[in-house]
């Protein structure tokens, strides 16, 4: 394989035979590789996702590389960092691209640290300015965008790809090429004593989400949000103050420091529309806002808005959603 490729790095398989965000980052990677006049490669750590060969073809991936090792069976950070650094050392890539998740947030910057190379998280796009890769990234929870010029051999870039619309082409499937990396010396330094209990469907994958905010007034009223979510066949979410005040579990927090969602429908009730909340829901296809304050920022993002009292509207919405 040619050196200097732009390499998209993934592990795991969550949705439709692919890791979440893989297509979006392949889409960004294809553009960047073309700008740089180099190849796009896809590095899979651990088991090969079932749809990888086909998907690789559709995004013009020149090389689908796979590192298989017992230590990558259920990939943990130390093995991932070691494997990524080893492949980078051998292949001299031009850039390593990641989809930003909580897991990649703990891996990508360590790879950059180990390689001594630049790192930028929260990327929304990557372009070329002369010889330099420039990454536009979200800052202040989304209130601003910062354009970073990254120098050095192999910048490590993670993208919040939920606003990217991937455009697959129609190339032929690419066969995976096995890479061997020596991970014998790698010991996970952090031991999982009690794994996170996966509790039902996750907000990240939900098609319909109804979220409540501080405008609900009291924790008792949150059950109306749960009822409306159920009536619409979706999941309930929340803004951060509800989590901070212990009304709901932190796994229900939508936003910059919570879940990043991309549902078909997001209904925000009694939520002001702070950038840090919008970071987790602005990619919704249709956003509905219900707020007492006609000037609330949330209406700027909404397709449909209702100015009114959440507590009066919720019972009626539950009724109307239930009626056929």
């Amino acid at each position: 394989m040619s050196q200097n490729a732009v390499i998209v790095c993934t592990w795991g398989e969550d949705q439709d035979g692919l890791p979440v965000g893989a297509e979006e980052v392949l889409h960004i990677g294809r553009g960047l590789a073309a700008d740089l006049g180099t190849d796009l490669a896809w590095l899979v750590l651990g088991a090969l996702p079932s749809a990888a060969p086909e998907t690789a073809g559709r995004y013009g991936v020149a090389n689908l590389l796979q590192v298989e090792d017992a230590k990558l069976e259920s990939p943990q950070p130390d093995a991932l960092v070691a494997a990524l650094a080893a492949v980078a050392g051998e292949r001299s890539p031009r850039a390593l691209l990641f989809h930003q998740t909580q897991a990649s947030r703990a891996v990508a910057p360590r790879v950059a640290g180990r390689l001594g190379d630049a790192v930028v998280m929260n990327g929304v796009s990557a372009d070329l300015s002369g010889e330099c890769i420039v990454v536009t990234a979200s800052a202040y929870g989304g209130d601003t965008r910062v354009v970073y010029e990254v120098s050095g051999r192999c910048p490590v870039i993670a993208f919040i790809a939920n606003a990217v619309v991937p455009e697959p082409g129609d190339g032929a499937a690419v066969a995976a090429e096995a890479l061997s990396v020596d991970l014998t010396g790698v010991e996970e330094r952090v031991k999982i004593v009690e794994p996170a209990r996966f509790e039902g469907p996750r907000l990240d994958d939900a098609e319909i989400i109804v979220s409540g905010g501080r405008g609900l007034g009291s924790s008792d009223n949150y059950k109306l949000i749960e009822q409306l979510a159920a009536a619409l066949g979706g999941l309930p979410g929340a803004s951060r103050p509800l989590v901070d005040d212990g009304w709901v579990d932190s796994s229900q927090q939508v936003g910059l420091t919570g879940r990043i969602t991309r549902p078909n429908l997001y209904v925000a009730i009694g939520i002001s529309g702070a950038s840090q909340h919008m970071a987790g829901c602005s990619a919704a296809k249709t956003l509905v806002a219900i707020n007492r304050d006609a000037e609330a920022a949330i209406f700027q993002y909404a397709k449909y808005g209702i100015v009114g009292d959440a507590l009066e509207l919720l019972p009626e919405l539950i009724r109307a959603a239930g009626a056929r």
Partner: protein
Amino acid sequence: MRIVVCVKEVLDPDAVNNYAVAGRLEIGDDGKTLTQTAIPRLMNGFDEQAIEAALRLRDAGADFTLAVVSAGESPEKLLKHAAALGADEVVAIQVDPGSLDYHLVAALISAQIEASGGADVVLCGRQASDDDQGVVPALIAERLDMSLVTIAKAVELEGTTLRITRVTPDGDERVETACPAVVTITNELGDPRYPTAAAKVKARRVKPTTVTPDDLKLDADDLAPRVSVTRQFVPEVQGNCEMLQGDSPAALADALIEKLRADSII
């Protein structure tokens, strides 16, 4: 045992957000910095909670020296607050914030830690609320060859073993790691405490130890910036919301559900 907490000074994110929501967030002539001079500068909220995590370890009986370090233009105010809360050492690494890239910050903090007796635990915020990057703790962990545990909401210390509860998309996860380790703290830890009035008065006299990059003897590779900000801008929000009308909550609710059915969204 020695615990180091890294704290960063940021513009108050709520104030920044208020300007943004009002459509009045502006970037100055340099094309990079926010012009709003009225926005207060304060300690990154997650870093306040990182100090709180250390104080809770102390409450639980752990015996350690607590050092709080900050790299920036003039972190004295933050460091006085840290001293009032019970930090034994407060260290200001004096640098021009304009030239700070994440590797450099991590190199400076790591070098300072090594030069001052090392650390068994380094506590950081999960991310700085200005750049939201969340990379400095990982870069410190790599430089000091420490393990890294991110997004912690509870930290316990038993001998030299850290027992940590992490917040993950699938719920809480309990992990263990041996010191030395870098741990990043998230808001689910809970509210940080305030210093007592007496401690605040005493802390007024505290002078932070001030070090410069020269004191830390970084090599050329450490000093070479890898990332530089060329521009900052305020993204535009489209704003074409259709406001539904109705003379009662029931009529409004019906109008919305009808729209969503007509669009085949539900």
